């Protein structure tokens, strides 16, 4: 039962263009969503998050959009840079309790110079 789904295992984008990474979730109890970035042989690092009370959050080149009715979120990277090449994980946590974070399977982004 995959509660957080990233249906695109990989994505290639030209340097300078926009990268859009998508994520769908099924659990209505999720109220906080996060994106993590992972380079090979390293642990994931937190990138950006969004609460369910918002529909957009920006941090520099990174913007996360949340569509609660569709249970869908996306990460936009503009402009994409070669250093952005990594695996991106979508994650979600429920309201209350111990905030157990559930991760998606990841999307490998390759930014081509």
């Amino acid at each position: 039962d995959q509660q957080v789904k990233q249906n695109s295992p990989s994505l290639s984008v030209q340097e300078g263009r926009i990268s859009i990474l998508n994520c769908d979730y099924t659990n209505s109890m999720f109220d906080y969503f996060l994106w993590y970035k992972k380079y090979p042989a390293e642990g994931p690092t937190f990138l950006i998050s969004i609460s369910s009370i918002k529909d957009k959050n920006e941090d520099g080149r990174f913007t996360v959009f949340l569509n609660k009715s569709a249970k869908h979120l996306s990460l936009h990277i503009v402009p994409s840079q070669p250093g952005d090449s990594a695996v991106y994980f979508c994650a979600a946590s429920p309201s209350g309790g111990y905030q157990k974070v559930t991760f998606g399977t990841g999307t490998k982004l390759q930014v081509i110079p």
Partner: protein
Amino acid sequence: NAGVTQTPKFRILKIGQSMTLQCAQDMNHNYMYWYRQDPGMGLKLIYYSVGAGITDKGEVPNGYNVSRSTTEDFPLRLELAAPSQTSVYFCASSYSGRELFFGEGSRLTVL
């Protein structure tokens, strides 16, 4: 500033052997987690802890045990290693239970 430190980074075990993956954090975080990542899969939660003396099972706890005697340390014990436990293991800590800080991972192979 060490953050989350995992040891060892690599280990090869024979079937039936036991071992402990060590995890330590120096950020005074109450929340700590163990995840495993299999090829092509996301991170699966094995165990988590909300503070010293308190632990609970995640999605895939079978074959593992944990303890949390101090805020800093959260070791993961593998008893009777099996090939299905071949994976990369990540320890993480958090102040809020939301944003997690991860260690570099421990790659375990069971032959």
